[in-house]
């Protein structure tokens, strides 16, 4: 408890503790629960006010589930999320509604996330209507302001989502997320669906908005270069666990976990003459239905020992602000 308080004085906006989210798998004639997808399996981290925490990992490792559970769009299996000193999962319906003004989400597919039957101005205005912000005329005015902020024009107000390009749609998604002036936004792969030429525009927009409104981001992505560009700190997920968490510079210059190392070596370098040794991982990502025992990475790990299949590594701080979950990387064998 005292530690929690101290952390909050550190300026931590979101504190996730032992978060677990399993999805039931139903089967058979009676639709009984036959198994569980262990999408997120006990993760803890915190996000400081005003920072961008990158969350990377392969498809299906639980990144999006993490983001959505933090926002309580999914009910957690266990664990807590403390947002601004309030336990998100213990709030009453009305309290939760109030809290939603402060935490928003930007989706990967901006087209699917906009109601095709509604002009985009109305979609952006929805949050203002729900929370009864100002008078109806003021709301329209606010929406126009926001449209300008994200680089759109007045006349776009009455247009429908399918009349926009991918980049513009993502701007609309961003406009909707910032309309309520939130403190915290989960960016769920916001640029993954966009053309490379558009990605940087949207990333820059996100950064400008962060500066202007003092936003805190949880930035989910699988593109390491994108994450490097925008994040202050980066967490790496593998099969429902966070396996490494460090400041961006630390992580990119000195990855400790073998999985992170493999990921880093897979970043393409725009220089054909430059060759480096690539760590190619063997095998496929195991199914989250039946994750491997011990360290979940051990079947694919180049440095795995027998102990790795038995003992689950703890998530420890091996250097200042650099956390790793690997038996092969203890504090004892870190060379600085």
């Amino acid at each position, binding site marked *: 408890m005292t530690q929690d308080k101290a952390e909050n004085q550190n300026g931590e906006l979101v504190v996730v503790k032992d978060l677990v989210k399993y999805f039931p798998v139903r089967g058979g004639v009676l639709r009984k629960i036959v198994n569980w997808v262990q999408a997120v399996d006990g993760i803890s981290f915190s996000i400081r006010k005003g920072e961008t925490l990158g969350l990377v990992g392969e498809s299906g490792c639980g990144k999006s589930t993490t983001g959505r559970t933090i926002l309580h769009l999914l009910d957690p299996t266990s664990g807590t999320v403390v947002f601004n000193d309030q336990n998100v999962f213990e709030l009453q319906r009305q309290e939760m509604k109030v809290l*939603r003004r402060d935490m928003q989400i930007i989706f990967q597919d901006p087209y699917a*996330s906009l109601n095709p039957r509604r002009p985009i101005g109305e979609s952006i205005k929805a949050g203002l209507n729900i929370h009864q912000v100002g008078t109806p005329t003021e709301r329209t005015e606010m929406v126009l302001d926001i449209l300008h902020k994200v680089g759109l024009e007045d006349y776009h107000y009455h247009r429908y989502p399918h009349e926009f390009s991918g980049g513009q749609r993502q701007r609309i998604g961003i406009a909707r997320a910032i309309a309520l002036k939130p403190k915290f936004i989960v960016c769920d792969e916001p640029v993954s669906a966009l053309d490379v030429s558009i990605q940087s525009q949207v990333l820059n927009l996100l950064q400008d908005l962060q500066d202007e409104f003092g936003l805190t981001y949880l930035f989910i992505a699988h593109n390491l270069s994108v994450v490097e560009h925008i994040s202050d700190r980066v967490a790496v997920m593998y099969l429902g666990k966070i396996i490494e968490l460090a400041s961006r510079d630390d992580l990119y210059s000195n990855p400790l976990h073998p999985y992170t190392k493999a990921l880093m070596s897979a970043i393409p370098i725009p220089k054909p003459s430059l060759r480096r040794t690539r760590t190619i991982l063997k095998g496929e990502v195991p199914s989250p239905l039946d994750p491997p025992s011990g360290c979940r990475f051990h079947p694919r790990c180049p440095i795995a020992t027998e102990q790795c299949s038995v003992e689950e590594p703890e998530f420890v701080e091996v250097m200042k602000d650099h956390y790793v979950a690997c038996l092969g990387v203890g504090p004892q064998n870190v060379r600085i």
Partner: protein
Amino acid sequence: MPRKADVKNKTMKSPETMSSLVWRRFRRHPGAMAGAIILAILILSVLLAGLSPFDPEISDIKNRFQPPSGNHLFGTDGLGRDVLVRILYGGRVSLSVGFLVVGISLAIGVPIGSAAGYFGGWVDNVLSKVIDATMSLPALMFMILLSAILREIDAPFLKSNSTLTISLVLGVLSWPTAARLVRAIFFTFREMEYVTAAKALGASNLRIIISEILPNGLGPIIVESTLGIGYAIMEESTLSFLGFGIMPPTPSWGNMLDKAQEHLSQYPWLAIFPGLMIFLAIISINFIGDGMRDALDPYKILAQIDE
């Protein structure tokens, strides 16, 4: 201050408002416009039936079974009553029954289907059982039973065999179709990401159901409803035939058609004209439904703006 005026000008003068766009699209649909005109004429003439010199219920035995002529445009029936006038008065009953039944079945079916499809889980289990149970009732027997019961009860608004009573009986039995359709729509749309977005904004379940999901299901609901009007008109005639619907001498298209069966070979106009009316009403309503569905489709509105 000038800012405010700007806001109005800039956004409101924008291409066109939603409703005028929809109307413009609707007008371009030839079938729908034809349907709308025919239905309008039908409704108008039905309302003006009182202007006719003939009475729909008083018999005139001397003039029975007159073929269509200048005096009696659609001929006369077995009791010498003018068929045209009876059709117009019968139209009041049949069209009201059609619209009322669909209104009632939507009023029951949409909320139940929405709740079942949106919440899923045990809510869906319970509601689906209710839907299935209602659907499995032997409709005809149940209709007869219900109208017999309603006849016994002396409720002030439910006079025996009145239009309202018949509509209620038919509506109570036809809502499961609407409920199933709406449930399926909600199953499709509730997983959409814009629904998640609305949740993230703090929207209540009711708001999501009404303003995020239902508008997307409008097309199929409209089409289903227009079909439902046709069914209701036919069902009413079945009930009338069995003596549990609108009772003679009050005319309805259904009971006129059924009466005409006895003399089909000798006096075909008795069957042709009511049948033609039913056909015209149903087909025009279906075309209107078609046009409305297309007009409300946002993907098609785009083409209009670009023109």
